[in-house]
């Protein structure tokens, strides 16, 4: 079996567990919706203010729900002590890592798919004027988030304070990702959209993702030892 097919197996295993229980998807989608509702009361709702604040709302929602979702997904492996089994499986660790990262990307995207239309609906944000670019930046953001998140969730598995430590580790590292995400979104929802700026930040995030993916592939094995 090639590496990618092995990775796909691992990813499919995670997603199938999730599809059967729907625990993370249901709770996170609801949490994301609640965030949007809180935003609608917490921030001014005139269109000018919305254009300025909606990118931050979107990416904060992705960061919060993503962190909890990834933490929970790895908790499952810990509860049943299946991480060891997964690492003992006769596949390279790279495949395990890639599979995990793919599954986490799908989870983060699923939550973003709920939050984004809700933001557009409740706040009247013009998020869908450039759906292609917006989708691209969210996918890139989810990939970067899931890749780095998977590395550190896997290493934090046996640590008691993992729930609080995950954001403490992730957010400082991921600041460029959130900045690129919000800058792109800002450029897209502005009154006079700036596609050039949007594409600059999309490229920036693409390079960032590529760099961190390579680094994660290299570092995963030395970080995750049972």
């Amino acid at each position, binding site marked *: 079996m090639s590496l990618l097919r092995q990775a796909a197996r691992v990813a499919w295993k995670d997603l199938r567990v999730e599809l059967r229980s729907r625990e993370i998807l249901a709770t996170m989608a609801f949490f994301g919706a609640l965030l949007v509702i809180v935003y609608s009361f917490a921030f001014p709702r005139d269109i000018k203010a919305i254009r300025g604040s909606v990118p931050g709302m979107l990416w904060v929602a992705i960061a919060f729900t993503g962190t909890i979702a990834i933490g929970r997904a790895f908790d499952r492996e810990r509860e049943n002590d299946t991480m060891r089994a997964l690492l003992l499986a006769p596949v390279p660790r790279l495949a395990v890592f890639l599979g995990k990262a793919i599954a986490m990307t799908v989870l983060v995207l699923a939550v973003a798919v709920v939050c984004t239309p809700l933001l557009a609906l409740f706040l009247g944000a013009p998020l869908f004027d450039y759906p292609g670019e917006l989708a691209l930046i969210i996918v890139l953001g989810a990939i970067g988030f899931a890749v780095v998140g998977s590395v550190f969730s896997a290493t934090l598995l046996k640590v008691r304070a993992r729930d609080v430590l995950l954001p403490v580790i992730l957010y400082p590292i991921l600041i*460029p990702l959130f*900045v690129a995400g919000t800058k792109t979104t800002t450029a897209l929802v502005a009154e006079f959209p700036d596609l050039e700026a949007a594409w600059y930040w999309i490229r920036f995030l693409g390079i960032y993702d590529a760099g961190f993916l390579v680094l994660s592939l290299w570092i995963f094995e030395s970080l995750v030892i049972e």
Partner: protein
Amino acid sequence: MKKLALPVLVALAAAGFVASVWLVFMVTPLQYAILDNGRLDASSLFFNQKIFYFHVAHAFMLFCAVFVSGLASIAYLKTRRPSWDDLASASAEVAVVFGAVVLVTGSVWAKAAWDVWWDWEPRLTMSLLLWVILVGYVIVRRFAGPSGDRIAAGMMIFGMVGVPFIYTMVGQDRHPPSGGEGVVATLGTSYKITFWMCVATFLCWFSALTIARVQSTRAERELRELREKGLDLGVLT
């Protein structure tokens, strides 16, 4: 030789500190420029430029520390030799202190020069983001239990690789430019001597603190190992 390094560095730093303060306040002229038309150049800073020598020297150490710590973390993950981990954590911890100095002096200078305590301008932002990574590193080491060293090493490596991204991200703004045409490169000779004197002083001070910290972590580890050995042998209870 090894035992001598620490006192020598401390002595150098102490002497250098006295010399730097003397150079900064007594020798280096106030920074201002008169334009051809006899008017004062708008970029003149006069007395408040004095903080530059300490501020930028500390910032150099902050960057230096991130790379020392990052490279030591890579070496630790590759070789698993605890001495690399000691170096990584010591330089990160010392860098937290240096970073705090950078942020405080930067803030004070911003108030004097731009009349705001904080401004989201590139290098202030960048120092803050690097500092946040270092603080996160220290927190992880402190609270992540036995595997904290590995996790923290990973975090530092990710942080180090992120530096060019942060640098690109924050771009250029109203801070004095850096590099070829930057403040450091275009300083007059007397400013330059003072500046590099400060950098050398704080480099000694930084190294001294890092070495002291490495020694204390090593002593702690050895003590712990001895205690475990003693417990195993039944000598200790």
